[in-house]
């Protein structure tokens, strides 16, 4: 209704890699969510600082127009050279930003999250940052396409959010530590197609894509949860 656009419980998660652009339409139900459409396009992101705006615009606007999702909430997950992310150990449980000795982060928008404690008294943190120019380009992209962009985060943060959502009340940092150590600090391989199906309804036409790349669906679901939780 004028002047506010009509809002629906529909989310579009967008994952931008160095070589792919993946869009996913997720609808929020009363107690769960449904993946209604997912599409992956080949991307060509040539340099570290510049994104191929026209290509992303073409694919994204085509996806949104095809599914009539002009007013959907958009969550953006980024990875690759535009961001800096690392898992670091610190001897304190309540660190300050100055405790992270990363010269690269000084010129970036960045944040950190506590992951788990270690046996040797150290605490493991996940830090991630994005360059200001890359962030500006993503925001410019959202303005150009009139997107209701609510989240820009990293793919790994989306997986952490999904992991947290999966365990909900039973989430423990020690369990996260075990799972991360088993998976070499990567959650890509943690989520199986069955786990994804348990978290959301996946239509039969997307089952083959889910089996082929469950991590992609996990990232989309993670982005949806990130956007819905914030």
């Amino acid at each position, binding site marked *: *209704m004028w002047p*506010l656009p*009509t*809002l629906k419980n529909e*989310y579009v998660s967008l994952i931008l890699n160095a070589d792919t652009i993946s869009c996913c339409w997720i609808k929020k139900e009363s107690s769960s969510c449904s993946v209604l459409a997912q599409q992956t396009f080949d991307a060509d992101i040539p340099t570290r600082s510049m994104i191929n705006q026209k290509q992303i615009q073409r694919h994204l606007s085509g996806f949104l127009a095809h599914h009539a999702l002009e007013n959907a*909430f958009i969550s953006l997950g980024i990875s690759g050279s535009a961001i800096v992310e690392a898992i670091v150990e610190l001897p304190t449980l309540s660190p300050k930003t100055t405790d992270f000795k990363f010269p690269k982060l000084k010129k970036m*928008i960045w*944040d950190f*999250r*506590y992951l788990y404690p270690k046996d040797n008294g150290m605490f493991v943190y996940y830090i*991630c940052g*994005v360059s200001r120019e890359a*962030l500006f380009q993503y*925001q410019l992209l959202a303005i150009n396409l009139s997107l*209701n*962009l*609510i*989240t*820009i*985060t*990293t793919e790994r*943060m*989306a997986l*952490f*959010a999904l992991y*947290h959502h999966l365990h909900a009340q039973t*989430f423990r940092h020690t369990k996260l530590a075990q799972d991360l150590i088993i998976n070499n600090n990567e959650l890509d391989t943690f989520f199986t197609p069955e786990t994804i199906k348990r978290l959301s309804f996946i239509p039969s036409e997307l089952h083959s894509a889910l089996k082929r790349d469950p991590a992609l669906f996990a990232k989309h679901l993670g982005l949806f*949860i*990130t*956007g*819905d*939780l*914030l």
Partner: protein
Amino acid sequence: MKPVNFIATLPAHEQHALQRWYHWSLCLVGFFLLSIFFIEWYQITTLSTAYKTHTNAQKKYAHLHNNQSYQSLVKEHESLQHQFDQAQSIGAHQASPLPYLNAIQCNLSKGAVLLESSFTHSECLITIQINVPAQALIFIKELLQHNLFSNLKLVSLEPGNSKQKNCFIAHIKGALKTQ
């Protein structure tokens, strides 16, 4: 674990809350306006009727206000009214000469003609044409009987000019009695 977000935006649930607030506000404002409208319906209809009457009257009498003849008529009316007032005020203070003239006219004997009569506030001068001089004396006597004149005197008696042969011109002067 709160997810990292690189941008500060309005979250989805806050956007929904904002929209709910907007819709409810719109509904409440609409309801409030409708309530006021129904409560004030009588006043509104009265105002509407008065406005329509006023508009119609304005349209009907617009030519009066716009036409210059209206202004000139008003000015003429005012000047006539002023003259009428002046005449009324003068008439109230002055006696009418009509009864004097009637008396003069009635008492003129046969062959006598009133040539001129002039009246001032208290005097009169009458000029008559007569056939014989005795007619002038009879005329004066008869006028004195009317109780409108006093001290009437024959001032002069002249023979008529070349056009008025065999007649005389008599000038009679006297005082007027107030009515």
